[in-house]
């Protein structure tokens, strides 16, 4: 059954365009999407995701499963980095371990929207308030990662590099992508009661979204494939980690989703949030505060392996898992 889900997933435009990008790199085509065009799409997607999520959140209200789900999501983004850290410390130093741990505790917005597209394609319902979970999982993981550095770093770390808590929170909450996502969510939330404005935003944030997602995934395909060589340098431990960790996190996620009583659609999104890893907010924060961590480690694992794995195989796999553990009747 999972094989058929994987096939159905692979045959949708977003994933096909992702492949088009990766293949371009493998056959050494000179197709490229020059900077700063990817930034345009990345900013657009964050704005649109946030805005639409805010609208839905206003509609659904904060009752029902909203608060428990979002709360559980935040807890997962605090817990997952700790688990990752313990595993990573087997082979890596504190700085690298903390940076990678933070990345896996945080989320990938593009993985999330690919999962949404997958659900729509499968005609499975899900709720807009899951975007709130998405938005609120970025910062806690960064905070945990930085606290791990602060308290687990060797004594020998230069005085000048000791982080103040203020700085940690600044990087965690105010880095560009987290800020834009949360800000757009708030604006969507505030706008929801103005139906004329909502409708006028719809062509930009709604209708255009799917196509822009495809265009961006074309670029992500290129970027991910370009990362593969540096992944080889990172060694087999990290390669294994970049595949095994999403699976483990997905498994934890599906248990929590079941405990929360989420329907299959929301459950899949919850699982995908747990299983995905950040390549926007977290690297930005780590680069600034933990320069000792090798950026090639946390970028090539998240972008070169975990991201494509989730996009292509992970999402349908997790759907199979959800289908098994969370009966549709629930």
């Amino acid at each position, binding site marked *: 059954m999972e094989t058929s889900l994987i096939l159905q997933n692979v045959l949708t435009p977003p994933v096909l365009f992702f492949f088009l990008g990766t293949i371009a790199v493998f056959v050494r085509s000179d197709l490229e999407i*020059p*900077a*700063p065009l*990817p*930034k345009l799409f*990345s900013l657009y997607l964050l704005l649109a995701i946030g805005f639409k999520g805010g609208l839905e959140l206003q509609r659904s209200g904060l009752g029902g499963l909203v608060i428990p789900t979002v709360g559980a999501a935040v807890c997962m983004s605090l817990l997952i980095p700790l688990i990752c850290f313990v595993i990573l410390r087997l082979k890596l130093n504190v700085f690298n371990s903390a940076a990678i741990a933070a990345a896996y505790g945080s989320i990938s917005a593009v993985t999330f929207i690919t999962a949404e597209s997958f659900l729509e394609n499968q005609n499975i319902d899900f709720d807009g308030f899951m975007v709130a979970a998405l938005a609120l999982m970025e910062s806690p993981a960064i905070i945990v990662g930085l606290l791990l550095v602060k308290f687990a770093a060797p004594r020998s770390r230069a005085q*000048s*590099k000791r982080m103040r808590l203020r700085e940690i929170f600044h990087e965690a909450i105010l*880095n*560009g*992508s987290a800020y834009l996502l949360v800000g757009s969510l708030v604006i969507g939330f505030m706008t929801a009661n103005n139906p004329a404005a909502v409708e006028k935003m719809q062509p930009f944030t709604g209708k255009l979204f799917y196509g822009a997602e495809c265009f961006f995934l074309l670029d992500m395909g*290129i*970027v991910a494939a*370009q990362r593969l060589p*540096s992944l080889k340098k990172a060694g087999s431990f990290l390669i294994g980690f970049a595949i095994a960790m999403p699976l483990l996190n997905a498994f934890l996620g599906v248990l929590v989703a079941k405990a929360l009583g989420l329907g299959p659609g929301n459950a899949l999104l919850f699982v995908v949030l747990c299983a995905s890893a950040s*390549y*926007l*907010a*977290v*690297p*930005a*924060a780590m*680069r*600034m505060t933990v*320069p000792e961590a*090798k*950026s*090639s480690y946390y*970028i090539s694992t998240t*972008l070169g392996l975990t991201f494509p794995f989730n996009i292509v195989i992970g999402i349908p796999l997790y759907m199979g898992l959800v289908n098994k553990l969370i009966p549709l009747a629930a």
Partner: protein
Amino acid sequence: MKRLDLIFGERELDAMLESLEKAQVPGYTVMKHVTGRGPERVVSEDMEFTGLGANAHVIIFCEEELLQKIKKNVEPLLNYYGGVAYVSEATPL
């Protein structure tokens, strides 16, 4: 006069310019969207949309006397975050 070339991460640009201002440089020129490789790191174009940022290249034309002051100010940044700084001769046209 001297020409100073600084190449470092784009995300440290504000801090770098601040420390140059503190050294009272007469002016500077900034090129962003620069990529490259140092002894340890590769900075590629896709880093512009991920959070890492590409490099910035800053050029300063100034009197030789100023160099020591600049050095004192920018060295901590270069040591912490990485980056290179080279000096050459330059005369006004």
